[in-house]
């Protein structure tokens, strides 16, 4: 069990050992980078084809099935197409910024993978403030999106970028607020420590994952909604909005630059999904001690794939929101609920000292009730709001 569990760590150590001693830190770094890029690059290709397949099945279609067996070579065909397309830069575009924007999106996203623990002893760097690093790096993508929209000199691109900024800044708040109870529970900002804090079981059968508490469940839901918005996924894909904005900030991009944006978007989704697994689903831990024969990175992959499937499922189901719906959903629903969730989390730990019969049930009931009441109330308030009246000064 341990050999298989640590196979990548051992292989990395062995390969590092082959290098002369002064070069060893460099080789170790290069190996970590190469491993991450290989795994998540492949993951990107696989996700694009399976996303299209699953979306097709959910809409009673077949999905792509022409290239290779069952259409599995579709990513190759897409890649060849993307790389051989003409790279068009608009005449009036700001050429330097237009060139830098896809890089500015993709590079920080790759950096975010550095702190995520993908298995036992498997994180590229174990930063003691890993989650801070993650969010700091993650917010750099907003700059890249605005660079793309501004430099294109195109009204659709600029509108898309403005929507993207409004959306990403608004949803960063509930995203971070939903993680705070987890940090409080673990007492650490290190993602490795957060995973270890979720080890063990309650009464031998229920894993001690954060998602299996009232505040964790609510936090997980809030986090996933905010994550979908952060990575511009459906139903929050307004920045692209191909039916209303052509393709938003991607309008003036073609060929490899477009592919880089596409890659960056998916990698952002992967990073934030991996973070959700780490924060709420116990990271690489097996659900039960009896299941620990399966390697830790395997458990991580299982949970990761399940969450990616959930994102695809939601994409197949929900239509796109309007911009005012999107923003009021963030500020009038997610943020208050995330704040309530903080208090529920505190109450949960304060009541952990209760030692009378049915104490656990009472704590659950209290926590769930404290979350359900604002949920229903805020939901009704969202629905009963007056329709937005638009006043136009010149276009009456």
């Amino acid at each position, binding site marked *: 069990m341990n050999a298989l569990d640590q196979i990548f760590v051992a292989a990395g150590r062995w390969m590092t050992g082959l290098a002369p001693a002064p070069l060893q830190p460099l080789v170790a770094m290069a190996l970590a980078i190469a491993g991450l890029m290989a795994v998540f690059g492949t993951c990107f290709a696989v996700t694009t084809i399976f996303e299209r397949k699953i979306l097709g*099945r959910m809409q*009673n*279609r*077949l999905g792509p*099935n022409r290239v290779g067996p069952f259409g599995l070579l579709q990513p190759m065909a897409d890649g060849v197409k993307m790389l051989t397309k003409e790279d068009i830069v608009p005449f009036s575009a700001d050429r330097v910024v237009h060139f830098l924007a896809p890089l500015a999106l993709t590079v920080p996203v790759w950096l975010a993978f550095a702190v995520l623990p993908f298995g036992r002893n498997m994180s590229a760097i174990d930063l003691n403030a890993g989650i801070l690093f993650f969010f700091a790096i993650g917010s750099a993508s907003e700059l890249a999106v605005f660079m793309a929209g501004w430099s294109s000199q195109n009204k659709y691109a600029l509108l898309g970028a403005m929507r993207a900024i409004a959306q990403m800044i608004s949803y960063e708040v509930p995203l971070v607020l939903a993680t705070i109870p987890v940090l409080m529970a673990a007492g650490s900002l290190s993602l490795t420590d957060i995973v270890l804090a979720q080890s063990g079981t309650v009464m031998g059968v229920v894993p001690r994952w954060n998602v299996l508490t009232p505040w964790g469940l609510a936090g997980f839901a809030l986090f996933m909604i905010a994550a979908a918005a952060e990575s511009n996924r459906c139903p929050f894909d307004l920045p692209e909005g191909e039916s209303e904005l052509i393709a938003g900030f991607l309008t003036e991009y073609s060929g490899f630059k477009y592919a880089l944006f596409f890659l960056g978007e998916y990698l952002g989704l992967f990073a934030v999904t991996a973070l959700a697994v780490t924060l709420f689903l116990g990271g690489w831990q097996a659900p039960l001690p009896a299941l620990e024969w399966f390697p830790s990175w395997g458990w991580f992959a299982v949970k990761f794939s399940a969450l990616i499937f959930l994102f695809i499922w939601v994409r*197949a*189901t*929900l239509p796109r929101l309007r911009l005012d719906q999107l923003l009021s959903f963030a500020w009038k629903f997610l943020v208050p609920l995330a704040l309530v969730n903080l208090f529920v989390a505190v109450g949960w730990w304060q009541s952990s000292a209760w030692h009378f019969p049915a104490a656990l049930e009472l704590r659950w009931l209290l926590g769930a009730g404290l979350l359900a009441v604002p*949920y229903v109330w805020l939901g009704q308030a969202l629905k009963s709001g007056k329709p937005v009246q638009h006043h136009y000064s010149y276009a009456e």
Partner: protein
Amino acid sequence: MLGRGIIKGLWETGRNFCGSYYDPARLTTVQYPEAKLAPWENARTVPFLVYDGKDAIAGLRCTACTICEQECPAHCIEIVKDTAKRADYLGKMQLQPKVFDIDAMVCMSCGICAEVCPFDSIKMDQVFDLAGGSRSMMLTLKELAKSNEYFRLIHPTEAAVVDAARAEEQRKAQAKKAAASPALPNAPATSPVSAAPARAATPAVA
């Protein structure tokens, strides 16, 4: 409560996802080059020429009257009359086309040729996957001539009406001939293809 519609929607897509694997009837996609939808009767694409019997040239109903050529709004039909004549299904001597070309790239499938044809010769086909590498795709007599059986297959209702009308005309012609020459009551049919419409009359009456 907020979110109930989302759960309903997720349930529906989830059901589609699972259902599409064990119930192929859910998948509405027809994978075109390998599988094709059965054409429906009212489909009309490019014209073709009907012939009776086995031989496409001998049994051709076309008499090279050039009405279709003159009526065609796109001018995609070209007919050259043959000098030789041959007997039609009623025993009358008629012209026949030497050349009958339709440019399928120019044809706009309006069906006027089929409407104006007094001999029930030119009818609309159901082939739809025609593609050409140039501006012109000439269909010659060889490709245009298709049997009456094929016509019955693709447009059964119209074919039955045509067959019945032709059988009736043939019966009248034969009766007239029999009245004119009572000495020869069992005269052989003048047309070598008269057997086909006679046979076809049976299902049309039924």
